[in-house]
């Protein structure tokens, strides 16, 4: 089973993202910011990550840069999932190694499509 890590400081969003991803057949773990997510990755590298941008302690862009430096850190597919929808944020995310980008809010069809585009399958 594909292991997903949802990284978001909003408990509401983690909860609904977990529900949607589990419905799609993924095993889901959660982290509440970049620091928490790094620890989770060091403990068990996930296959895919749904990543918020703005979070306390460590934001999404800092996290993905740190992740991609790690041994095996190139492996997880990373899908940003954020309200940051301007050109510069998306460019920075792609340069840092993001595989896809979702604007909040989104629906199940969009999530399914974007995961498929990123090459993530349950």
């Amino acid at each position, binding site marked *: 089973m594909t292991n997903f890590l949802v990284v978001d400081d*909003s408990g*509401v*969003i983690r*909860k*609904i*993202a977990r529900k*949607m991803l589990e419905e799609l057949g993924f095993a889901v773990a959660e982290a509440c910011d970049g620091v928490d997510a790094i620890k989770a990755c060091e403990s068990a590298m996930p296959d895919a990550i749904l990543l918020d941008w703005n979070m306390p302690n460590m934001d999404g862009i800092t996290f993905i840069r740190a992740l991609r430096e790690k041994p095996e850190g190139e492996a997880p597919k990373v899908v940003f999932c954020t*309200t940051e*929808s*301007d*050109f510069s944020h*998306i*460019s920075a995310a*792609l340069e840092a190694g993001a595989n*896809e*980008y*979702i*604007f*909040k*809010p*989104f*629906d*199940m*069809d*969009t999530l399914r*499509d*974007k995961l498929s*585009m990123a090459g993530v399958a349950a």
Partner: protein
Amino acid sequence: MNPQDLTHFATLLKARTGIEVDAQKDYLVQSRLATIAGTAGHESVDDLLRAIRTAPDERVLEAAIDAMTTNETLFFRDQTPFDHLRKIVLEPARRKGGTVRIWSAACSTGQEPYSIAMLWEEVAHHLPGVRLEIMATDYSNACLTKARAGIYSAFEVQRGLPVQKLMKHFEPDGPNWRVKDNLRQSITWRRHNLLDNPAAMGRFDVIFCRNVLIYFDRATRSKVFDNLNGQLKDDGYLILGASENVMGVTERFRGDASSPGLYVKTGLAAPMPRAVGA
């Protein structure tokens, strides 16, 4: 559900789309907006509607309105037709060169012709000597106006579109995204009723007529097939929606066995079939 919040949202929905929702349909609002509420960070649909009334955020409102409509238009819908277009029509055109004419016959708000134009930009440099013409028509003036403008909300633009294509073919336009000028200008837009004679548009190598015939009765579908048959070149392809086919409606087209979803002309001038007992 707070009546004041629901009324406020219903008023906005009616003004922007013409769709009416009253208190008796609050279950519909609840079911359609549950995911949007959650992914916007709200505990419930009630909280979402309250926020729309008291602290409006255009992006969230657009997503909520879009979720309330049954509009299923998205970029690169079903993908397979676009793969067929590339492999079966565009790449073989390299041998003989010339102009390939494509008609998006029910283009709605433009996602289909723009998808074709994006595909063409990606393959054109491999096909010297080939030119592409895209004609996009719809009956709805409102849809055509939006299609021509090429402006889509953040919610709409991510449906079916990989982020790399978004960055390549679109520009930010306030909270929205606008198709780049070169792409918009590569398409000819025209209002057209599928029941009217399309002869003035000339003949086409490929006609996309997807997900519109399902709204017509059998006699009307037959008439539309007659019209499409007249505008399709003898070696051309008709592309229907994934849930549509010609069976029992017309003998002018048959499925291409090697390429599901593609239809070719049979050359038969078949009369419109009558329903049993009619």
